[in-house]
């Protein structure tokens, strides 16, 4: 089967601390993968390596057959890989709507346009449609600083989906979102992303979400993948039960 994203022997250390070691992964088109692991297992480092925030010590990353190892975030994003962050990376000095408008202008390659406003009628309509499934449409004109933590997280995801990426990497997307809303948000998000046939890699801390929605789970323990497969098998793995779930 064709692959979208592949990593081979990806390794990264910080001083004497091994963050990830020999990570070899293959992700197929429109696949939804969830990465689980305890704190410090290397999940976010893996996302940082794939998106160019960090350069690997060893190994390489291939996207649609092209080697993208060590390319900076801007180039990786332009190729079609977007991400959201554990700590929301948004523009707190702008309104919710302006955040999305700016992301849409970036997708349309109009970020450097000097003449003509950012807020056009077409862009505004698209931004409001995009904010709808995240429950942020009614907050469109509010300054971002007024949003609750969960709202910031959702806006961060909205910004990355505004780019219409081929591959989307979401780092703990429902952390900070109220337990009342998180399943609704996840279902909406999955529906939208499946409609667009986006390949998604979630870094997930919430086992309720994993057991409910996962099709394929990768478990990271001390920088290595110890299990990869359907959730039932992975979560039953003794190493995962011990290191990730804290059982046994």
């Amino acid at each position, binding site marked *: 089967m064709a692959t979208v994203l592949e990593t081979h022997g990806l390794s990264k250390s910080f001083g004497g601390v091994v963050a990830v070691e020999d990570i070899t992964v293959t992700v197929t088109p429109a696949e939804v993968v969830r990465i689980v692991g305890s704190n410090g297992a290397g999940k976010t480092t893996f996302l940082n390596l794939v998106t160019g925030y960090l350069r690997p010590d060893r190994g390489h990353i291939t996207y649609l057959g092209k080697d993208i190892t060590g390319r900076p975030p801007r180039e990786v994003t332009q190729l079609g890989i977007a991400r959201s962050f554990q700590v929301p990376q948004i523009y707190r000095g*702008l309104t919710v709507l302006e955040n999305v408008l700016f992301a849409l202008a970036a997708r349309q390659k109009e970020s450097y346009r000097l003449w003509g406003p950012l807020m056009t009628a077409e862009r505004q309509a698209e931004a409001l449609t995009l904010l709808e499934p995240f429950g942020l449409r009614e907050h469109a004109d509010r300054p971002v600083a007024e949003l609750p933590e969960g709202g910031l997280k959702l806006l961060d995801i909205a*910004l990355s989906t505004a780019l219409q990426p081929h591959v989307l990497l979401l780092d703990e997307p429902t952390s900070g979102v109220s337990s009342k809303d998180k399943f609704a948000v996840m279902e909406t998000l999955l529906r939208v992303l499946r409609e667009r046939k986006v390949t998604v890699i979630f870094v997930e801390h919430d086992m309720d979400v994993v057991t409910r929605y996962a099709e394929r789970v990768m478990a990271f323990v001390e920088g290595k993948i110890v299990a990869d497969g359907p959730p039932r098998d992975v979560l039953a793995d003794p190493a995962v039960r011990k290191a990730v779930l804290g059982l046994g």
Partner: protein
Amino acid sequence: MRPALAATLALLVLFLALGLLLPEWIIFVLALALAKGLVVLGVVLLMYGGLVSFGQGLFFAVGAYAAGFAMKLWGFQDAVVAVALGATASLIVAAVAGLLLARYREIFFAMLSLALSMILYGILIKAYWITGGSDGLTIAPPRVLGFALAGEKLRLALYALTVVVTAAAVYFAYRYARSPLGYSARAVKDNEVRVEYLGVSVAHAVYVTYVLAGGLAGAGGVLVALNVGHIEPQLAYWTTSGEFVFIALLGGTGSVFAPLGGAIVYEVIRTYAFKYSPYTWQLTLGAIMLALILFMPGGLWTIYAALERQGRQWRLSWKRTA
């Protein structure tokens, strides 16, 4: 008509009318204030991107000297051509300097911009056979749109040219602030990581803004040169650049109109402070800066913003009761 365009045109007409009504010395002070306001407008555009330049004197001087050389050495005599030449020369210098400066932020950006302006200052002082050294160059009275004017008529024509160029620049800055590029600069100030993760180049956004600010400073430099009739290395000196930052803080960054207000207030205070206390006028300005930072960190524009907010509330309550 768009409100900003209407406001710009209204100010244009107002300032042109003031030129016919006010005494000549006030017109001169206003012309200097508006020309400096152009430079400050560039400083404010950079501030939108979180960048403070202590080196806009570089472009201020490049614009003035380019126009001075064009008129003295190459025979260009028209003030409008001089403004175009000075602004273009500054844009070119900014396009080169920006290749280096767009890679730096915060104190490094501020100090590097200052360093470049001081290099030019040194050159202007030492290359006296071309620049006239510390004595500078005297500029002969220019033609204006082909007309040879003199005395009060020339003064008025140069003032009108300053007003027109300033109005055009303010409207341009307004459009910039609302454009995707203007938002790119604001986004850089807010969160560089997300800018790159949207596929947008932080360096490119900073570079273009820096070049635009350089062009504005160059145009301001020519207009000061034309109105004063003399140019000197002091234009590139770091205290001149510091003055532009001072005015930016005085006016505030709440609007593209704020730098002009700041520049006019500054020039009036400076003129009177110098008149009544010629040896301690800097002390007066220092005290004003201190008071400003302590009591009005958003600059004078906050007064207008507060009045506008109050007016909106009154209008709302009036509508409710009506």
